[in-house]
């Protein structure tokens, strides 16, 4: 049952087996597995329901809002999320659960009740249990009502790698877990994606940019066994990969360029964004990455770490939405800021919705209001209220940027080398100038300086100015001498001062910190990443992180609710694999790159995303991983890929945020101060989407249309939409029009033959040759446009100019010549269909080379 080796499959040397043969193979596999596991499946039907998989979701969705952890809102004194409480005698003298005796359990009596006044859940709740759910509960109680701790609060286990039935398919232990599950489901994995698809997928997933035709050809021509690994290693080491990961992280920590409330003024944050990219480029271990962000101001630089890094990283604590709207009350905003931080840290590192506990104990998870405020207390030492002034005035300014003290003028990580070079040159010039005798004074007193000295002086002034422009201000974390007092706010009411004062503490359900005195942000950061055996929750945090990384490469996490590991989330589809990945990350010293490498070189990742109708019907959401996923590119990459294909993308690392074209008047509702948007007029216009100025109140409309988040809150998963606005952007946004024009210029430079040009266009945009139909469709469009240009040459010429917007782009001038005129339209067609904006794409089955 050996599957053909991926490395043997190239465009020139297509796989030797036919589709029919493969299908037969799958069928054979399926039958064999069916036979082996029929018996097991039969036994499973009578097995005790699994609490986490079968029972917890029923209780969580239907019961615990009223019979759960929130003691202030608990009905009948009944708590169903806790085994002892659930089996205890109630106020009524009855017991909800009598383990082993469903008939005596009041819970069963009530869910079977016909009287609408007595039945549970009550009709007004609009929750209804179906027969299967009722039976599950009965069987569970009959089996003794065994509870199990919620999966996300249990440390990951080192599950043994399943023995592979098919030894050839797995490339790694990851595949053994995937295959084991497929085997139990009597499914076979998909065959590998063809190499053309695969290389595009790898490039897009790891870097956000498609391969160039040359990179594509090199991969296809490579017949070595480890070509995937080598390509992956090259991509992982590239700055583009660091940029891709940075987009992911910036969504989580809600990085943006503006304050987010009221005047939505610009604040100084971009050096933090550059630090994140740099950290991914340097593959800084995730535990260190965490520590620097939460407590950069409290720790010493590590060996080999630039002393500024911890300062830059500490901007994390300042990324929240802030306001200095006139008339704000400091106490109210203190509560708002605290809640913002608690929501973010708990979502980013814990996958927990602790924000719910601001006003009440969590309705579904064992998180208390006290937990919420104790978590907030960790951040009570952060100096960040100066912009609010004493009574809501002063401090912050209605300027661009506004002030959010404390700030520091600092060099971004990518500007350090340039700064050093400039410093050296300036020092040299200064030395030379000081060695030069003050010639004029010694002689007549008004003799002009030698030309060389004047030149050196001017040069020095110019370089000094250049050097100064490299430093940027960034908001930083500074510790207050005395932390603000944090009180538990009853019902979240900031005006109620009757709540008890709380000290920093971690979630009570996960234990406590063993520190002397007041626990610090450093203690919190270390607790998040230290192994369980050493008193931390590192493996639990790792599970949250690896799940999100997995989602980057499969479209969905192994646990679908990447943002919520609580009772309202979903249990993971592959819990053992998720556990092992988490342990792997911790064991590797929090090496994200190595983990990503293992994921994307797995056979599971390499699978084709094509699915048979049967598989689609059986597993529409691809929970079983019998194929790869398919999804549209993220907003930034839709932009990047178009500019890249058009040869316009300017790849520089870091720097101040950039401003692409934007519809006039888009900022008309902003005020304090009023905003006029000035798009960049130089090459900055064509930087990657990651660097686009992130205006929280009015996110750039191209990014917003393609579902980029405003970054007001943590975003662990962008919900994709498919809207007419997206079509309008692709059709009419000047950026995409220019990109199409750039692509046309590229095609015209490359060849004079129509067919060659069409091939090149398609290869740039879609990473493959057009098939016969696609070629025919494009040829027809070309012919129509030629005819029309011949009939009305002046209009066509004018259009070519206007389409470019930027007349100084000389390299495009050829398009306004007679033969060039039809091409921009053809190119604008190439960069728009699904294959150009989807990842991973499919190659067409009918391939042709003309």
């Amino acid at each position: 049952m050996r599957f053909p080796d991926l490395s043997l499959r190239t465009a020139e040397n297509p796989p030797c087996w036919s589709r029919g043969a493969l299908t037969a193979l799958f069928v054979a596999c399926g039958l064999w597995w069916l036979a082996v596991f029929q018996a097991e499946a039969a036994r499973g039907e009578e097995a005790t329901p699994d609490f986490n998989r079968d029972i917890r979701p029923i209780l969580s969705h239907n019961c615990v809002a009223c019979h759960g952890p929130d003691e202030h809102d608990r009905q009948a004194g009944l708590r169903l999320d806790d085994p002892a409480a659930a089996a205890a005698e109630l106020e009524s003298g009855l017991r909800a659960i009598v383990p082993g005796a469903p008939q005596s359990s009041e819970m069963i009596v009530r869910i079977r009740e016909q009287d609408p006044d007595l039945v549970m859940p009550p009709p007004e709740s609009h929750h209804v249990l179906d027969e299967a759910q009722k039976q599950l509960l009965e069987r569970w109680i009959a089996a003794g009502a065994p509870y199990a701790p919620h999966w996300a609060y249990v440390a990951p286990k080192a599950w043994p790698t399943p023995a592979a039935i098919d030894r050839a398919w797995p490339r790694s232990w990851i595949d053994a877990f995937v295959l084991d599950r497929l085997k139990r489901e009597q499914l076979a994995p998909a065959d590998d994606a063809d190499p053309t698809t695969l290389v595009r997928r790898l490039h897009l997933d790891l870097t956000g940019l498609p391969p160039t035709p040359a990179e594509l050809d090199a991969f296809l021509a490579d017949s070595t066994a480890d070509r995937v690994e080598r390509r992956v290693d090259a991509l992982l080491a590239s700055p583009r990969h660091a940029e891709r990961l940075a987009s992911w992280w910036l969504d989580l920590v809600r990085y943006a360029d503006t304050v987010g409330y009221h005047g939505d003024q610009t604040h100084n944050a971009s050096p933090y964004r550059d630090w994140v990219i740099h950290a991914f480029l340097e593959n800084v271990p995730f535990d260190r990455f965490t520590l620097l962000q939460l407590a950069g101001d409290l720790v010493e630089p590590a060996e080999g770490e630039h002393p500024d890094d911890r300062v830059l990283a500490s901007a994390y604590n300042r990324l929240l939405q802030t306001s200095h709207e006139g008339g704000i009350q400091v106490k109210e905003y203190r509560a708002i800021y605290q809640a913002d931080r608690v929501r973010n840290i708990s979502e980013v590192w814990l996958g927990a919705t602790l924000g719910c506990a601001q006003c009440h104990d969590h309705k579904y998870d064992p998180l208390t209001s006290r937990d919420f405020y104790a978590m907030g207390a960790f951040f009570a030492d952060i100096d960040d209220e100066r912009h609010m002034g004493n009574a809501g005035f002063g401090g912050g300014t209605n300027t661009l940027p506004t002030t959010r003290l404390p700030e520091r003028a600092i060099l971004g990580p990518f500007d350090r080398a340039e700064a050093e070079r400039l410093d050296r040159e300036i020092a040299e010039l200064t030395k030379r100038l000081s060695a030069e005798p003050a010639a004029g004074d010694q002689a007549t007193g008004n003799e002009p300086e030698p030309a060389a000295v004047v030149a050196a002086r001017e040069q020095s002034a110019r370089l000094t100015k250049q050097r100064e422009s490299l430093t940027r201000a960034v908001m930083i974390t500074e510790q207050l001498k005395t932390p603000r007092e944090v009180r538990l706010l009853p019902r979240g009411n900031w005006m109620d001062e009757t709540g008890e004062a709380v000290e920093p503490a971690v979630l009570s359900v996960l234990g406590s910190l063993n520190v002397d005195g007041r626990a610090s942000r450093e203690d919190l950061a270390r607790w998040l990443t230290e192994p369980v055996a050493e008193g931390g929750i590192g493996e639990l945090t790792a599970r949250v992180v690896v799940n999100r990384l997995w989602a980057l490469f499969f479209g969905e996490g192994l646990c679908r609710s990447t943002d919520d590991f609580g009772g309202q989330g979903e249990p993971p589809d592959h819990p053992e694999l998720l556990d092992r990945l988490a342990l792997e990350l911790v064991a590797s010293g929090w090496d994200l790159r190595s983990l990503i490498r293992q994921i994307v070189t797995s056979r599971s990742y390499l699978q084709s995303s094509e699915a048979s109708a049967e598989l689609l019907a059986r597993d529409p959401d691809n929970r079983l991983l019998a194929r790869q996923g398919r999804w549209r590119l993220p907003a930034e990459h839709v932009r990047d890929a178009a500019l890249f294909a058009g040869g316009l993308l300017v790849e520089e690392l870091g720097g101040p945020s950039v401003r692409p074209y934007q519809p006039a008047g888009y900022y008309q509702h902003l005020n304090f101060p009023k905003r006029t948007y000035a798009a960049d007029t130089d090459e900055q216009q064509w930087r990657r989407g990651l660097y686009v100025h992130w205006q929280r109140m009015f996110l750039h409309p191209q990014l917003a249309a393609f579902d980029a988040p405003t970054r007001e809150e943590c975003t662990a998963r962008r919900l994709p939409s498919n809207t007419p606005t997206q079509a309008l952007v692709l059709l009419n946004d000047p950026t995409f029009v220019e990109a199409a024009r750039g692509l046309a210029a590229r095609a015209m430079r490359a060849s004079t033959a129509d067919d060659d040009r069409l091939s090149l266009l398609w290869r740039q945009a879609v990473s493959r040759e057009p098939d016969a139909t696609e070629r025919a469709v494009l040829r027809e469009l070309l012919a129509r446009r030629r005819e029309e240009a011949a009939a009305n040459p002046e209009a066509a010429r004018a259009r070519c100019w206007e389409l470019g917007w930027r007349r100084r782009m000389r390299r495009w001038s050829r398009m306004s010549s007679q033969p060039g005129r039809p091409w921009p339209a053809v190119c604008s067609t190439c960069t728009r269909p699904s294959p150009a904006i989807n990842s991973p794409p499919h190659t067409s089955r009918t391939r042709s080379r003309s």
Partner: protein
Amino acid sequence: MISPTPLHRRCFLGQAGLSLGAASLGGLLARDGLAALDLPAAARGAIWPLHHPPQAKAVIFLCLAGGPSHLETFDNKPTLARLDGQPMPESVTAGQPIAQLQGKELVVLGPRKPFSRYGECGAEISDYLPRLGGFADRLAIVRSMVTEQINHDPAHTFLNCGTAISGRPSMGAWVTYGLGSEADDLPGFVVMTSKMGRNPQPIAARQWHSGFLPGQFQGVEFATSGSPVNYVASPPGVSEAHQRDVIDTVAALERHRLATVADPEIATRIRQYELAFRMQMSVPELADLSDETAETLACYGAEPGRATIGTNCLMARRLVERGVRFVHLYHSDWDHHGGIEPYMDEICPPTDRAAAALLADLEERGLLEETLVVIGGEFGRTPMAQSKDKGAGRDHHIKGFSMALAGGGIRGGVTHGETDEFGYHAVTDIVHVRDLHATMLHLLGIDHTRFQRGLPRPRRQAHRRGASPRGDAAAGVGLVIRDLVKPT
């Protein structure tokens, strides 16, 4: 083109939570006429069948942004006139949240304009709003509104999203999601803004965001001048025929693709291109007011090409006529910390004229019956004076303020609730912002307590996002204010 069949709908919804708006897309493409309150099958949203027969099927929310004074509009307080210039009794203000008057001396400011009684119901309405007064018997006035946020930005977010926390859907998004849209070439949720000459408070796109619902439910901003919708104009020099040609070619490539890979997202994308093209054609037609009579323009105070309250109210009628579900009009400049008198003199007449014209026009066209019109701001203003340039003004106030409702299912001639004699605290029949949401949803045929329950799984996933199930506009917390609802 591929016709939207039930099968397709199922496909969309089965795709791991993708394309949740597919259901309403059908509605975007196939309008089956506007049979009275009987939603055509294709226009259905996430809630089908509706929980109860709807009394309204469209909403126009005229938001007077900045916080209009209830004491100069709908809430007459003779006591304030009597105590004008006297210290405000401390018993009223002690321990209350205060915005810009923090630490200042608190002095009563009497109403700046007399009130008159209007209609058979005898509703009291300020002389600032005489034309609206003429509609008293069709208006429901709520004088006991309360909100939880005292600063503009969070208060707007609260008014639209039912929470001050960012990232939750706005009412327009919820309504479009729940009901779908009946417009076949326009978005279901449209936002328009106008302002007067002063320095208005900023407004964030958060106010019409889809939050954790998919992007197709986001409000689309329409402008009255320039390009009406972002990116709706073809690139310079590209004619309608050229754009059509590009779209047809893209569609041909997509159809070919769809035949190879059965991805329903591709079918959706083909339709979106088609809809985009139709928007390119229909939006300029919509924005072109030349088919309106001079009399109509004058009635509204509409000025073609200028974003005034009059133009926008007229546009709102045109949008509703075309099947748009939710029109959100922002009229800024109601933040009168100082100079409340001159500023009200300036802003009230055009607002009064436009709002009254809108009601009259809707009524004349038989649309008022099925269109819920809500008029009000994010909060009210203090009974206490705040002095600034151009004379006295009033500070932000959240413990009692007013709103007016009319049309679809609203019981006319009702004045609901009251504030204390100072117009400070709402004291009887208090209406929380979330009660307003609940009532709006009720009129549209949605039981707010069931809105988010029992939906198919992908939809539940869509708006799960870790959000507290109570913390948004459609979370089932408020109460339906029956007093405002016309008995059926």
